[in-house]
């Protein structure tokens, strides 16, 4: 059985490439989307094990994506908010996300957070 993937939703191409690189370096299978609409399409293809979600994005933003995702799939996969908001935790609670990362983040924190949520993700199916 293949390990479940990490879906990174981020509009900044440099940050997206960076997250993809550090997660791949750590042995994760990574899929990416530049905004919420594309992310929903990725989810429809394959349910990821964790979603890293930027909030402010052109197209469908993080708030709308989270709402849409919950409507369709409930808590099938944990969402980790990656936000520049001063209170990342409040932002996460606002959309019912399971975790949060503040920008700028420590690489170690990203890896630890992703590992923890992948482990706790409900099994696919």
């Amino acid at each position: 059985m293949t390990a479940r993937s990490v879906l990174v939703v981020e509009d900044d191409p440099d940050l997206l490439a960076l997250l993809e690189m550090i997660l791949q370096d750590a042995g994760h299978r990574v899929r990416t989307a530049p905004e919420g609409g594309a992310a929903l399409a990725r989810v429809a293809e394959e349910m990821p094990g964790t979603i890293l979600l930027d909030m402010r994005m052109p197209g469908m933003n993080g708030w709308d994506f989270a709402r849409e995702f919950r409507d369709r799939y409930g808590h099938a996969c944990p969402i980790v908010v990656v936000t520049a908001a001063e209170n990342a935790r409040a932002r996460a609670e606002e959309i019912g996300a399971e975790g949060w990362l503040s920008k700028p983040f420590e690489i170690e924190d990203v890896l630890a957070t992703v590992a923890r949520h992948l482990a706790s993700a409900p099994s696919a199916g």
Partner: protein
Amino acid sequence: MTPGPLQRAGAPGATDPEPSRTSRWRRRLPWSPGRIVVAYGLLATLWVALSDRAMEALAGGRAGATLQTAKGIVFVAVTSAMLYALIGRHERGLRTRGAEIRATIESMADAVLVVDTHARIVEVNQAAAELLRVGSRTELLQPLAEWGQRFQLRYLDGSPVPLERFATIRALAGERVPAYDAIVRAADGRDVFLSVTASPVRVPGGRTELAVAVLRDVSAARRLDELRDEFLSTAAHEFKTPLAVIKAYAQLLQKRDPAEAEALVVIQRQVDRLNRLVQHLLDTTRLRLDGGRDGQLQRFDLGALADEVIQRMRASAPGHDITVSWVAAPVHADRDRIARVITSLVDNAIRFSPAGGPVSAQVDARDGEAIFSIEDHGLGIPAERQARIFERFYRAHAGTPHDYGGLGLGLDMSREIVARHRGRMWFESTPGTGSTFHFSVPLAEGAL
């Protein structure tokens, strides 16, 4: 026709301020009642003393009764004519004066309300009707309490202004009311931001019969403030993604090429510093944009929080000996924001004592208040700059050899946070010796 309120307001004895010698109103009415009586008395005495003799001379010493009667009629006619002229002149003067006062109030761009001792609005100008978007200014001539309810006069935090705190009521009590900010809801449902002042109107006896309130519409300035804060907030927010990318790449490179670690650590440290500045800007602007909305209140111990914050900050100030002593001081407050106040004060104490040395923090509980104090032995604040240090963007050491950076936001933000907790903030500072800053928040209910 019933007299208009302004005629009432302009009636003698009600509003006559003691006019200065140069006032044109004074010059228009040169004859005071006293002068008129004295002049009349002199004229009448002369008449009484001289008219009989004149008559004797005219009638050859035998004044007839007819002539005496005629003399009396002439006297009455002349004095009546004089009185008529004098009273008419006075009345014209008063009318002109009333019209001038009315025109003065009318020409003011700010809304003016005149309130009498029964707390009734007795006069308003057109600007008031326009400000409150009512069709006719007579709608506004009502008891002040009803006016306050109708237009929902409230402080910026949304709490209603109690009647006894209305500027005019305070002015009627003899207070000179400094400008304060308030909000009213105009008749069309829109909120208008106001700067309100009021002064008592004293009659010559010294009694206060009226109060005049001036309401200035500051909505435009306020919107500009909000735009600025929103811009700062967005800008600060936008900085964070590039900061995240730079920092993460620096970490990545450091891992891959340990030989360059030194340079890459510097990059990360500077990114962290930039991030703190950006965070600071965000904190302050958000605090403003959130307006009076309460933060998340919880019960915690101010002493323990101060200890925790200072432990965390010690690492970044190896040259300083930061001590903290505290007693139990339970408060019911927004923990994150109070932590920011402490952080900001400790950061100042460190920054402005560049030679290092002791920095002592203390938490006390007395008289229903939890009090945090922090003392440094640094530069102190020059006396002439002390009055301004709580101003936003003001930096007491800007442009001096002791300019150690910062955005000039810390104290402004701190004082605002403390004020929202119904606390106080104050300091003592001696240039060359150091500063001590204090803030207080009320102890939680049930605390000893």
